[in-house]
């Protein structure tokens, strides 16, 4: 199963993410978020645990990606290993491991400004889960 693919959006970047489980779906969407922004060399290992909840699974996806984006933008942290647990489809805990980006040794690309709600969806399919999300760049 493909992890994610980009789709055409005139001004911004659309991502379709896939996963056999909701956990895999959320992790693959996170990897897409990082890939848009570049290929990073990481120093200073970091580990954290977070809990997030929202009104629905698709809003939780926005919350999740926004959380990663916030940590990337303020602390320069990129996470590479995830252990997610969904308490409900709209509530998760995540243990994450990654590192602080060494920008001088990284190939940087686009700054993602935000995770939008435009055409947002999280859907269960015959093969698992699919999500659509558009990033403002």
């Amino acid at each position, binding site marked *: 199963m493909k992890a994610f693919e*980009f789709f*055409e*959006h*005139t*001004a*911004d*970047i659309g991502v379709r993410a896939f996963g056999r489980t909701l956990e895999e779906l959320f992790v693959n969407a996170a990897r897409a978020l990082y890939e848009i*922004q*570049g290929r990073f060399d990481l120093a200073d290992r970091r580990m954290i645990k977070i809990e997030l909840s929202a009104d629905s699974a698709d*809003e939780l996806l926005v919350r999740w990606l*926004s959380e990663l984006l*916030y940590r990337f*933008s*303020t602390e*320069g942290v990129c996470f590479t290993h995830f252990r997610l647990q969904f308490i409900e489809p709209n509530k998760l805990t995540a243990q994450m491991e990654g590192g602080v*980006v060494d*920008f001088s040794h*990284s190939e*940087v*690309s*686009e*700054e993602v*400004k*935000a*995770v*939008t*709600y*435009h*055409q*947002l969806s999280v859907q269960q399919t015959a093969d698992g889960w699919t999500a659509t999300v*558009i990033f*403002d*760049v």
Partner: protein
Amino acid sequence: MQPLTKITDVLWELPLTYKAGMRVCGRVYASEAMLRHIVGDNCLEQVANVACLPGIQQYSLAMPDIHWGYGFPIGGVAATAPDEGGVISPGGVGYDINCGVRLMRTQLSREDVAPKIHDLVSQLFRDIPCGLGEKSDLRLARDDERQVLVQGARWAVKRGFGKADDLEFIEEGGCMAEAESSNITERALERGAGQVGSLGSGNHFLEVQVVDEIFDDTAAQTMGLFLGGVTVMIHCGSRGFGYQVCDDYLRVLGRAPEKYGFRLPDRQLASAPIQSPEGQEYLAAMRCAANYAFANRQVLAAKAERSFLHALGISPNALGMELVYDVPHNIAKFEEHMINGRPRRVCVHRKGATRSFPPNHPSVPARYRAVGQPVLVPGDMGRYSFVLAGQPQAMAQTFGTVCHGAGRVMSRSQAKRELNFDQLRRDMEQRGVVMMARGRGTAVEEASAAYKDVAEVVNVVDAAGLAKKVCRMRPIGVVKG
């Protein structure tokens, strides 16, 4: 062209029947040749969605640089009336609140700068933090940052960035009143703390340009612009601070439609009545972000001036860098407009659209009052940009608004598939443009081929009488994130 009906050669109407829930018609400013792209994009659907906003007045408008955005189309304009349950929508402003353009003129001519253009661009690239991961050399303590949110460009002037005379030439005097920082989240403050005086990435840029064509001598002279003269253009906004404010308030306003009993076709259009507590809170926070952006561009301009002095080894007097004007193009503001023959105070959302006030309007600085407000319309980095002057038809037809740029025709991924960085740099060199960019992929996405020809865009607003062309500038140096 379906589904649009022709009003004039440059104006097309999207009828109420296009989509259930539309409260007003859509109106699109475009030439017939541009319509093919517009109809093929998803943006007309977004024009129709905006027409569904409660309290919208007259038309959901689209400027000729319209393209598919999120919520509002890029190039979308809507005015809502507070006394008719009109709403404020963060989707009508965007994440990059008060993203805008600033133009500085100099006394220098092309010949003064061209021989040293490589040194100058390198100096600017060193001095102006740009691109992903680059922080500003200013790291603000919370108290200081809160001052930025309330004072805007005035804060920057107090700190020695530029001079007090600049303020008159910034829309709103560089400071939106009624900015209230008490509801700003810690997250927004943290994202903003290290970014005042940084350019960012994406389509943001700093350009060294040369005026290569004058269309209106009087207006150009009034603005201090002369043929062959060197100008500097900065395109940038409120950085992570604004993105976080928008994000925070989309969550708050996302629940408002249900609370206040209206339905919207796109969640990104989350809105609240202007007079509701949620609407008022967003407006106060949005103004903080707008002020952040005014301060940011003021600091960037001062840094650019220092880079010029250093790279060219000349005195401030010899450089003679002065602010022509600074315009926001992602913003919502209260303005008075004539609606059905009477003056009404409305909230004008400009999402990728620029204010274009005509001669004699009291909000136009005294210096420009005879010719109209300078409107800054950047094109793509390989071609040219325009200065226009606001005209009376903008007040009559578009709530005093025109376009903001060229508008994309190629998606970012398509641009990356079809073009590469080395080819782009060669192409830029052939055009006589020295470019330095932090992210190669980002630069490729911004190539000329990915954009409409901005000349076609400004010709439409000129033909419609919304603004008139004053002059055109070609880039000779480009700094990109």
